[in-house]
């Protein structure tokens, strides 16, 4: 029995179900109670469960996350909401020095059933301090686990699984997905929380992505199909651990890999994915694993520039097309990196089924400067309809 829900509604259902099922579950964070949550995820729960189980906190990320760690040590199952991942930087001591290490450094005496829910990602012109992704910051920490649901169904499943788990789990929720719709079957059997899923089958290349960009990658695959390129799209669903088997099985079939991520390219999640798949699937690969990622740049406020800092559907299409070009494409791939191409504002979210998030959206001005990012592939004759080769912000990207 499935019904159509928004992503935030699916999270709300999951939290409600776990609060009802287990008296040791509670949630806390800024404005989660009376206000109902910045993205409505905790809506209605304060009235239903009371202030002790749905706790509004002061703006003290470091200590209320630490509160979650302590409560988990005492046997509760806290679900900490940090309003955005940018604020999680203030809570890293509790997460990295505390939650990740206590079960280990106590010699296995304690469980750590802590869930930290963090919205993040580039949304609509929230500025450099509210647009980060930061998954790499926590991916590198032994003892943590990271889930990255991209659909309402996964949001429902993975939040429930995270709450039941005795290990600390960070749930990275993309701010642009809260108002996306999808079918949710609350009775369906969930796959394991860290299992990747093949969203679309194909045989020409494998696109590995996660979170919002897993959806953009599916949209890109639909475009590619019109050109006769059939991309297999893998939604990782989890960044720690990563389901390498699902990826490798696909690569053995397609022989080409494009990793797509929203986060900055340098030392990001994509670097880990590309390196491991290159090691593991070397014999199967017909071309080096390629990465398409956000620019190594703080996110500009200007809407057009902002959109140009992260991969958009046309960028994914172009990178995939380049990767699939016989021989010539391979040479190009070894010499250059598919870089981002500027897109018009209308293309920024092309094909993504989503409504506007709670954050205010300011339409980019028609007269806003349009960046002319250098198209690495353009000089090699790759069709790049949206891009004009020019010196621009992306030039330094390849260094």
């Amino acid at each position, binding site marked *: 029995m499935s019904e159509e829900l928004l992503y935030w509604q699916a999270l709300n259902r999951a939290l409600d179900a776990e609060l009802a099922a287990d008296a040791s579950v509670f949630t806390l964070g800024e404005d989660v109670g009376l206000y109902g949550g910045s993205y409505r995820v905790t809506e209605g729960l304060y009235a239903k469960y009371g202030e002790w189980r749905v706790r509004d906190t002061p703006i003290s990320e470091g200590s209320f996350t630490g509160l979650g*760690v302590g409560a988990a*040590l005492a046997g509760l199952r806290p679900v900490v909401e940090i309003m955005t991942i940018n604020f999680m930087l203030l809570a890293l001591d509790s997460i990295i020095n505390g939650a990740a290490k206590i079960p*280990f450094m106590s010699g296995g*005496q304690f469980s750590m059933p802590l869930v930290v829910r963090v919205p993040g990602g580039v949304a609509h012109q929230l500025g450099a301090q509210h647009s980060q992704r930061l998954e790499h910051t926590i991916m590198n920490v032994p003892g943590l686990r990271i889930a990255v649901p991209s659909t309402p169904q996964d949001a429902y499943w993975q939040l429930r699984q995270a709450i039941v788990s005795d290990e600390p789990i960070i749930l990275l929720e993309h701010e642009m997905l809260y108002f996306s719709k999808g079918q949710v079957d609350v009775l369906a059997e969930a796959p394991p929380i860290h299992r990747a899923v093949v969203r679309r089958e194909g045989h020409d290349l494998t696109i590995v992505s996660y979170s919002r960009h897993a959806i953009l990658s599916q949209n890109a695959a639909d475009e590619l199909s019109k050109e006769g390129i059939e991309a297999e799209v893998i939604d990782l669903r989890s960044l720690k651990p990563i389901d390498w088997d699902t990826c490798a099985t696909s690569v053995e079939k397609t022989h080409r890999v494009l990793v797509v991520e929203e986060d900055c390219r340098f030392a990001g999640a994509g670097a880990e994915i590309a390196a491991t798949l290159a090691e593991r699937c070397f014999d199967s690969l017909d071309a080096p694993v390629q990465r398409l990622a956000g620019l190594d740049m703080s996110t500009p406020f200007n809407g057009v520039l902002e959109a140009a800092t992260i991969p958009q559907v046309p960028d994914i299409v172009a990178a995939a097309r380049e990767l699939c070009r016989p021989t010539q494409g391979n040479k190009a791939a070894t010499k250059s990196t598919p870089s981002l191409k500027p897109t018009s504002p209308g293309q920024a979210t092309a094909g993504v089924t989503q409504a506007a998030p709670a954050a205010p959206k300011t339409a980019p001005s028609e007269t806003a400067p349009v960046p002319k990012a250098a198209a690495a592939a353009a000089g090699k004759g790759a069709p790049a309809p949206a891009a004009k080769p020019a010196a621009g912000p992306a030039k330094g990207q390849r260094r």
Partner: protein
Amino acid sequence: MERDTLHRLLRDMLLSRAFEERAAEEYSKGNIVGFLHLYPGEEAVGAGIINAAEPSDYIVSTYREHAHALIRGTPARKVMAELLGRASGMSGGMGGSMHLFDSKRRFMGGYAIVGESCPIALGIAYAVAMRGLSEAVICFFGDGAVNQGTFHETLNMAGLWRLPLLFVCENNHYAIGTEIHRHSAVVEVFKRAAAYNIPAEQVDGMDVQKVFEAARRALDRIHDGGGPQFIECKTYRWGGHSMADPGTYRPAVEVKAYKAWDPISAAIREVEFRYPTQAELAEVGPDNIGHLTAHMVEAGHLAEAEIEKLKKEVQAVVEDAAQFALQSPQPTMEAAWAHMNCNRHHEVLI
């Protein structure tokens, strides 16, 4: 105060002192490596506070916590073995000196980030309050921690929600190597609690009776639902911050003056180090020798023979602990992985 209580306090302090002296010895021999933060000088705080607690109360500590664990009742063998990183240590050799855990005794860990114990204690107290239990959580920290954001954030939330939390500041006057007048705008730490509506008092942390009595009062209020309490114990560490720190930044006369204040030596009328001269003491103000200890001996609670017996007893415990630790096996990499994945049992994983 009852004779039995006084004897328990003195025994715990003697055990703590003897244990730390042995730990320093093993460190010098190379059997203990890494950081080693010793407790001598501060024993009255740990003994007074922890002896006032119920077994159902929780304790969250810092990286200077060997004595806290011993006083709480963790066998000296398991503490010493952990200092040596052995498999038989209380944290399986995974934690070391700064990360002692004993879940059975509700000893919720030593934490090595200054100020980190505060939010963890806050969370445990939240769990107690949410369950409506009559238990208290004791949170140890030093004067260095009171300038961390987590300290203030925690006091605010504890005060706001009236959580069953006893804050215990072991004010040894040094934030690692910086004296309190050089690190705090307000050096009377207990005054800070007023900003968060938390009752607070300052006690002589060299006087175990006063510490014990203050802790009893505070814990009684907490167990009765009176909300958080705060005790500042003014104390002093004999040594540097850790074994790696000779502590030479401290004026010799200051160290001597505090050593003259030593509750143990005063208690048993034995002074193993030189008292400061009258001239030296005049430089640092009035001397405070022997509150507790004068009382103990004068009240007839202690005889010379008992002192010797107690000393021998704790020495034997420490010797046994050291031998046990030295003979214990090293933990394996398999054990390390098992601890790493100790909570991976709920789900089907990849």
